[in-house]
């Protein structure tokens, strides 16, 4: 897996990569209206990135994306999730994990759904979907990248 594949595979994977990423982001954002959500959409985007990794080889991909940047993304997602949970204590009378955006009017996500597919509903749930989606994308792609880069240095049956 250290060298890439032929020219046709590289070109076609580069052409289909944006469509897969846009579909995965659509599933993450519309998590409160259609089946899906943070975990499912994050797995779709991580599969798209792994397809590019297999087509171009792990040496080329490790030069473009170091795993330090990926771990910064993942920590950002986890921090956003925890801080949304802690705001419930400050703004809503001391209840952990409260849906504090629903009780205020005029904010971005503060409506009540009626079954007709309006994105402007559901309080704090879309923000939590985005946070968990970031975490899953960065985590799964970091696991695949680190394993693929480390195994190209191992020769079979060597003892050290």
């Amino acid at each position, binding site marked *: 897996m250290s060298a890439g594949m032929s020219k046709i595979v590289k070109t076609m994977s580069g052409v289909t990569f944006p469509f897969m990423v846009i579909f995965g982001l659509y599933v993450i954002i519309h998590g409160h209206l*259609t089946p899906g959500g943070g975990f499912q959409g994050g797995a779709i985007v991580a599969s798209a990135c792994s397809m590019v990794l297999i087509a171009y080889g792990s040496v080329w991909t490790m030069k473009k994306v170091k795993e330090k940047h990926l771990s910064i993304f993942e920590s950002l997602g986890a921090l956003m999730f925890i801080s949304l949970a802690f705001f419930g204590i400050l703004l809503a009378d001391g209840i952990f994990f409260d849906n504090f955006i629903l009780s205020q009017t005029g904010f971005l996500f503060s409506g009540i759904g009626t079954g007709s597919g309006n994105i402007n509903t559901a309080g704090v749930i879309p923000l939590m979907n985005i946070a968990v989606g970031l975490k899953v994308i960065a985590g799964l792609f970091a696991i695949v990248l680190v394993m693929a880069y480390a*195994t190209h240095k191992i020769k079979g049956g060597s003892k050290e």
Partner: protein
Amino acid sequence: MMDILGPHIPVPYIAVVGLIIIGLYAVMFKRNLIKMIIGITLIESGVNLFLITLSFREGSVAPIYTAETTPGTLMSLPVPQALTLTSIVIGVAVLALMLTLVIHIFRHYGTLDVRKIREDDN
């Protein structure tokens, strides 16, 4: 559709039992480390199928409000589906750590056969 097979044979629970028994056989009787890991994954899939079977109601739809559902439609239970989601993610995390340790074992001993690793350690 399940009445063809007999009066009261619960087909999903028999599928769960089959998956768990095949996974247990692979863990106990095979010598390659990768085949044992595949057996553990099969047991995990059987348990997830069991959890999601408990949430079915006869003649129900998915628990999502669309433009066609009236208040009073029969919907299936949403809580076991949420627990299954958590269980799948935990299975992925455990599988990643198991595969990392197998890579380190192969690099140190040179073989993936469990009996040869145990003799080499004695």
